């Protein structure tokens, strides 16, 4: 089972796209490639399950460890566990939906699809890499395509947003970079430093050192997943981006951060994780509540979803900060669920925008009558985002709550309660948005003869909804997929505690 395919398939597709002529070929080729990828990721899931079922209990499966820069001990080391696998699945869902949504992307179509595929290749690479250098490589790989996508195909003050996004993310990765170097030079396996995630996890790094470099890594990754107060790229970026890009941005690249916080910061620096957990919790709680309230005041659908993403990603960081297994499971679930949900949301908004050419709630209204399918999708996304049972959002949030509550400290519980309180605010802004935009009388007569979703849009929405419901109704498969791997993290944290 060679994981490198995960990177190669989109990459080759991207190159193939460059050879195509005209939108028709481009989109067909990319759809074929992405579908292949989609199927492949499911095959991967199947094989992974088989592997686990057959008692393969090693932490990572399908490992490949190829020495890249021998003198610097940099390896191309890849492998997957449940967490990364779930992320991979998420990515494949979002990307295929993204391609479908941008089916009629006429302007500079070749470049558009190329960048999209390139981006996805980066994300896959990120999720499978077990070597910090490779990880960082793919982390930064994903920044510039976003810049291009937003800047070229975006709307509104796109240049500003694109620049802001690129710079803030780069600043984030700069911090990550320092953190990684710090780790590297303080690991010594018989005198040799190492970038290898697995090796580092087996070494013991002095707590003092950890406390120095944890903030770099965590904040750095945190910027990617909208850690308060470094979240300001999120609203602008998301709202200016073209639909597919916003889907990708909110659906996947914000998860890069969460994944990094978990995999690198928390897993490799457990002492520091304990040391800083109150701060993390404070920040994430602020992000959750504050994000929710800010969302309440937004007028633009994309801004609404963007800020709600801030609030929702707060749950991810909260879950990580709480450092209990359930909460970390919750964080992972939340990553997946938020990815799907927000992608769906952006897809719906994009479909609405492409028809009505406005995203302001007050200018919309009564779309349910003319665009029943799209509006339904919109409402579903909304309900998922406000944590309705039967959809993934509920499962994830509940798991986070449960996990956070396991933490007996009174302040942690207070934070948990505050976090819970956000679900009410969420309900408020989601219902306001839905109520004004989708329900109510038709405000604008031009809307009378709008066409409802086409097959590609229906398919895209369908795929995402399937994902959401599959997790919402039967979460156990995903939960059981990730539990053994969060187990490792917990053991690590536990060891850190005992060493104290």
């Amino acid at each position, binding site marked *: 089972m060679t994981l490198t395919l995960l990177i190669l398939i989109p990459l080759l597709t991207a190159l193939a796209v460059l050879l195509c002529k005209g939108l028709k070929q481009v989109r067909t080729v990319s759809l074929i490639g992405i579908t292949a990828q989609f199927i492949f990721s499911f095959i991967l899931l199947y094989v992974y399950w088989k592997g686990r079922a057959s008692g393969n209990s090693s932490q990572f499966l399908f490992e490949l460890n190829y020495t890249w820069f021998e003198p*610097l001990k940099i390896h191309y080391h890849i492998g997957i566990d449940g967490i990364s696998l779930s992320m991979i699945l998420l990515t494949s869902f979002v990307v295929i939906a993204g391609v479908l949504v941008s089916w009629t992307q006429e302007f500079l179509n070749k470049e558009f699809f190329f960048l999209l595929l390139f981006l996805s290749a980066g994300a896959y690479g990120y999720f499978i890499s077990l070597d910090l250098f490779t990880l960082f490589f793919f982390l930064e*790989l994903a920044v510039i395509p976003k810049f291009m996508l937003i800047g070229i195909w975006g709307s509104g003050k796109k240049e500003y947003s694109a620049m802001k996004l690129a710079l803030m993310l780069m600043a984030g990765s700069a911090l990550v970079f320092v953190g990684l170097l710090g780790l590297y030079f303080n690991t010594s396996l018989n005198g040799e430093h190492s970038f290898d995630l697995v090796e580092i996890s087996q070494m013991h790094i002095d707590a003092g050192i950890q406390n120095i470099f944890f903030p770099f890594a965590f904040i750095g990754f945190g910027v990617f997943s909208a850690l308060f107060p470094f979240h300001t790229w999120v609203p602008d970026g998301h709202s200016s981006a073209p639909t597919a890009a916003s889907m990708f941005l909110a659906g996947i690249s914000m998860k890069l951060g969460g994944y990094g916080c978990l995999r690198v910061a928390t897993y490799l620096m457990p002492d520091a994780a304990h040391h800083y957990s109150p701060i993390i919790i404070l920040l994430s709680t602020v992000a959750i509540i504050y994000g929710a309230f800010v969302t309440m005041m937004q007028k633009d659908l994309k801004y609404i979803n963007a800020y709600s993403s801030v609030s929702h990603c707060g749950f991810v960081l909260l879950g990580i900060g709480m450092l209990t297994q359930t909460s970390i499971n919750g964080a992972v679930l939340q990553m997946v669920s938020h990815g799907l949900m927000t992608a769906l949301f952006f897809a719906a908004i994009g479909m609405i925008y492409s028809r009505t050419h406005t995203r302001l709630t007050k200018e919309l209204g009564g779309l349910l009558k003319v665009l029943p399918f799209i509006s339904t999708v919109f409402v579903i996304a909304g309900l998922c985002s406000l944590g309705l049972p039967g959809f993934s959002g509920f499962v994830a949030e509940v798991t986070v709550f449960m996990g956070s509550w396991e933490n007996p400290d009174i302040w942690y519980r207070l934070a948990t309660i505050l976090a819970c309180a956000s679900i009410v605010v969420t309900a408020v802004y989601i219902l306001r948005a839905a109520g004004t935009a989708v329900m109510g009388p038709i405000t604008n007569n031009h809307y009378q003869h709008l066409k409802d979703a086409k097959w590609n849009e229906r398919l895209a929405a369908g795929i995402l909804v399937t994902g959401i419901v599959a997790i919402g109704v039967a979460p156990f498969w995903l939960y059981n997929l990730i539990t053994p791997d969060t187990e490792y993290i917990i053991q690590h944290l536990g060891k850190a505690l005992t060493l104290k």
Partner: protein
Amino acid sequence: MNMGIDFFILMKQEWAVMIVLFILLFIKVGSKDWTNENILNLVNILLLLNVIAGFFGYKEGILFNEMFKTNHLIATEKNILSLGTYIIALQSYPWLKNNKNILEFYILLLSTLLGMFFMISAGNLLMFYLGLELSSIPLAALANFDLDKRKASEAAFKFIISSAFSSGLLLFGISLVYGTTGTLTLSALPEHLYGSPLQIFAFILLISGFGFKISAVPFHLWTADVYEGSPVTVTSYFSVISKGSVIFVFMTVLYTAFKSYAVTWYNILFILSVLTMVIGNLFAIRQNNIKRFLAFSSIAQVGFILIGISGATQAGSASVIYFVLIYTFSNLGAFGVVGLVSAIAGKENMEDYKAFYKTNPMLSWVLAISLFSLAGIPPTAGFFGKFFLLMAGAGQGNYLLITIAALNMVVSLYYYLKIVKAIFMDSNENPVKKLIIAPSPKLALFICVTGIVLTGLISYVYNYIFSMSIGI
């Protein structure tokens, strides 16, 4: 010492350059007059041969009682330089096509290259000084090559005056070194250097001389003006070849001759690199002329290189040489496009690049990729280069420096992206017309892009350089 065959082998690269030089001279004095195209093509072929010749028959040795030394590493450095020169020669095609002094141009260019070779191989401060002068005095003439341009002559004047000034200081330093140690041989220096104030002063004077050539702040002020004034080709030569060569020498001198001052020069490099990065970036942000902009960006790059040098390990020197190679590709890629635009369309301002993508997609991509590589964005080689430089620096455990550097990378990204934005996103009523490009610049750009893409991903290059480089 047997001045036999190895007298030729060891100096093979110098011989190659000299042969080309003399061929050109004979053509010049020869009665038969050549068309520009023929000359240019001939030159390109000769330079290609020169590059290839560089890769054969490595031999380690010393000549002229340590006035000339060479080894695998030095040979490689020379190869990098001659490769760069070759690319520049290819790129200068459209600019020189209608120029009547092509031969002189190349004679000057090659003599500077020769100077650099001698400088790199110098085992002796005298040879080093001569090489330095040989590599800088003709450059002044080259800077002035667009004879009728006001800016060109101003640039040339500024360059020659400041280089004379700096070499004056350098000489004063050398004389003090000589006075306090009694030797000019680099390898003999260490045992005579015991850190007396006067020696340190002399050392600082020397560093200022280097700093001038590699344009490290505060010795950089000539850079931008000269880069802006000179013809693009010469600018790129300045920014890549002459800078790169001095960086090589600087590193070897620090690592070998002054290794006993390691602490001192680490601190000096710390200060210089921070200054260089910050000032370079701050100035680059607000530039409008793209050559001037590239000048400042290349100043900022030097800051990163200095960090790599400060690493003072095998990895450090390897990363520096590696980065210079990558920097050659990236910067020449950028300058190549800029040069084409300025030579064909005669435009050198950033506004002119707005909506460049509409008319010249390929060139836009080349420029963009080169800029990304300069900014250190994966998967371009620049990423690896920067990463390894900073990694080498981090080996010293000074994470303050690394953090500053990392944040400076962000700032630098800002202005690189500004150009990308102009190219791809801004609209423009009269963008640059579609450019018709001659094959040789195409080839040059192709080499650059290939270099940018492959040098990083293929780890062989780095490992190869690492295998032969030596730390302190």
